[in-house]
């Protein structure tokens, strides 16, 4: 019975939609742009923590050992290397690799501006990065005075071709090649080098480690090993699982920086505007058909019937507009990626979230616009 009624309502909604094609196209365009707007602002909003996670996403580790003062990736503080040595002996730990970070000053030997460059120091044999060009250029990394440069390092740094000599903190270095990872939010330029080169350039000692990458033995449970590590190590270090690390970076970028707040408020405004567009579109559609709705009521259709018609209409419009909007969003994301180097990526969960939000919004605006249908009195309308 209910199914039959729903089918009748659906058919009616469909007829209304195909009856006036120009008008329906207009409604679809409105809903399309509302969904696209939500996608774009959501893209910016998630791009910020995604940018913060970019470099972690290309590192090999199951658990991350940091100082308890750890803030976010580019400000990890440091801890004693001895903690890492002790961690390596904890059951379930297969490998514990130190990673060193530093800020440097990059200048062409011929002079010119001194640019801030972010320096990564590591032992290439430990393979901390899952980045092809860092692994297959290992022999290049091991040469004294040689660095590899991230290929998204900004053009102001000049050409990044192999063989070019540059100065880092006044020391002559040679670019051995480039690698493709992305600078994330580490800075406008990133250079990777092996430990020996890193210590020589920065004057740092091996003892002060910035990040400890811990890989587990096959079959080991990250939660259990994390607990064992906390037990075995002094209280001056923190153990992150991949999940808690993602939560930490996410909360840092979305709540502690104005970037997160800007895109967060952009997203909220986008949702409100989206809701308004949907409401506007549906209310216009319904207002157009008020006489017909009144007629239906006069011949015995209940308010429930008409509600179903309007809801089905709303869902159809959203359903049809959603796919092209998602496709257009991908195009816009590609544009944003190339124009801004923000790693905007559409994940299935984002798509689902936008779909759910727009459906919710359209059902909400359908209910809002239903008031006039409920009040529709056959006697008044004509």
């Amino acid at each position, binding site marked *: 019975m209910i199914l039959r009624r729903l089918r009748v309502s659906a058919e009616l909604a469909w007829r209304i939609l195909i009856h006036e094609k120009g008008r329906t196209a207009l409604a679809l365009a409105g809903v399309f742009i509302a969904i696209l707007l939500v996608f774009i602002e959501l893209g*910016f909003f998630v791009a910020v923590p995604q940018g913060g996670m970019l470099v972690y996403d290309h590192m090999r580790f199951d658990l991350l050992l940091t100082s308890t003062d750890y803030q976010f990736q580019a400000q990890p503080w440091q801890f004693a290397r001895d903690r890492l040595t002790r961690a390596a002996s904890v059951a379930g730990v297969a490998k514990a690799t130190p990673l060193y970070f530093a800020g440097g000053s990059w200048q062409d030997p011929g002079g*010119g501006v001194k640019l801030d460059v972010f320096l990564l120091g590591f032992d290439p044999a430990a393979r901390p990065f899952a980045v092809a060009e860092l692994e297959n250029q290992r022999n290049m990394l091991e040469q004294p005075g040689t660095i590899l440069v991230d290929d998204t390092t900004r053009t*102001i740094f000049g050409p990044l071709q192999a063989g070019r000599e540059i100065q880092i903190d006044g020391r002559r270095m040679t670019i051995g090649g480039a690698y493709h990872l992305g600078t994330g939010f580490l800075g406008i330029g990133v250079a990777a080098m092996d430990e020996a080169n890193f210590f020589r350039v920065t004057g740092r000692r091996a003892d002060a480690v910035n990040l400890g990458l811990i890989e587990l033995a096959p079959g080991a449970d990250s939660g259990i090993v994390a607990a064992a590590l906390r037990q075995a190590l002094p209280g001056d270090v923190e153990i992150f699982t991949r999940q808690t690390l993602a939560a930490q970076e996410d909360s840092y970028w979305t709540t502690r920086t*104005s970037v997160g*707040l800007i895109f967060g408020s952009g997203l909220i405004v986008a949702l409100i*505007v989206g809701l308004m567009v949907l409401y506007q579109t549906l209310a*216009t559609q319904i207002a157009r058909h008020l006489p017909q709705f009144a007629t239906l009521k006069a011949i015995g259709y209940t308010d429930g019937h008409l509600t179903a018609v309007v809801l089905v209409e709303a869902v159809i419009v959203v359903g049809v507009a959603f796919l092209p909007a998602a496709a257009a969003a991908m195009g816009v994301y590609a544009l944003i990626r190339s124009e801004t180097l923000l790693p905007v990526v559409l994940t299935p969960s984002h798509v689902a979230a936008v779909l759910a939000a727009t459906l919710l919004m359209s059902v909400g605006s359908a209910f809002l616009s239903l008031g006039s249908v409920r009040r529709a009195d056959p006697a008044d309308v004509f």
Partner: protein
Amino acid sequence: MAALDLSLRLVPGATVPLAWRNLVADKWRLLRSSAGIAFAVLLMLVQLGFERAFFDASLAAVRQLDGDLFVMNASKYRFGARDPFAHRELGAIRAVSGVASAAPLYADWQDFFWTSPIDGKPHLVRIFAVDPDQPPVFLLSGIADQQSLLKAEGAVLVDRRSRRFLGMDGATAAKLNGQNVRVAGNFALGPDFMSDGTVITSDREFARLTPGNRGSAAALPIEAAVAKVRPGETIAAVQQRLSAALPSSLMVMTKPEIVEFERKFQAQLSSAAPIFFLGTLVGFAVGILISYQIIYTDLSDRLPQYATLKGIGYRNSYLVRSVLAQAALTGVAGYVPAWLLSLAVYRIIRSVALLPLHMTPQLTAISFALTLGMCLLAGALAIRRVIAADPAEIF
């Protein structure tokens, strides 16, 4: 209909009354349409405001510098990157004729950590250091007038508009690079996109707190020399003399030049401009669509009336003007509430994100022009319906 007739009878040939009567004929519809347009306008205002706020925040520190001429290392690519020059150059700068004073500004953006009384953790902060016996380097009240407080040992001035997790507002004592400091006063500068908070110290304190520094304040390298020109001298002439007297490794900038230097860096290397441009563009597109829907619906409903007007001899040009006038009025009806609402939204974002988000005449003018543009464009697109209206077919 009655309203329409009346307006025609009262002011024959006038288009605005017709447009106006059409606009206000249905109060509910007007409310709905102005709400739709208002939100599109609000979206544009927020995006335009963010872009402005981004640059205002990034430029706040250099705009507060109190000097006619600034000497910095020529290898500096932005103001906010450490690249100091030798202290002895200060003497050479002061020796140039026309220079009334030259005060040293020391700065660091990477090596100073403020232990927040809130979470007890060290956080990176921006530090500026001045010689308290020299003329003020910053215009900002709270710095310029409290500079003498910095003479006391361990005294610092802090930014009360720093990010809250730093706990600078209301702090009386804290740790900077692990050493105890006393908060002698505060000022209101606000964070930018690189620094969460700002601390100001004396040169002596800066030398004491700089990690690994063993030199005295008198030997500290200088980030920028802030010079004032003697009365009666032109800034450009002194700038030329300074450039000629100093080694080519140093550059001399006027105040507008140093602000432009930093603005150019931000425009070139940050993604702010394209991001907010895209946001504004989307707001504009949404606005066109909403206003097109509004105008199209309105025109469709009044098609018989328009056809009648044509039937009794009104020309298309009159109807076009009337439709465009109505489109413009719809835009204004949406713009005014959006503008008012944006003041509240700006205020909220200002206090939550500590961004210098303010309504300015320029923002008002740009957003109003965009609003009129989108409504007129939508009106022009929808108008074909009226032109095509044939009195004989409508009835």
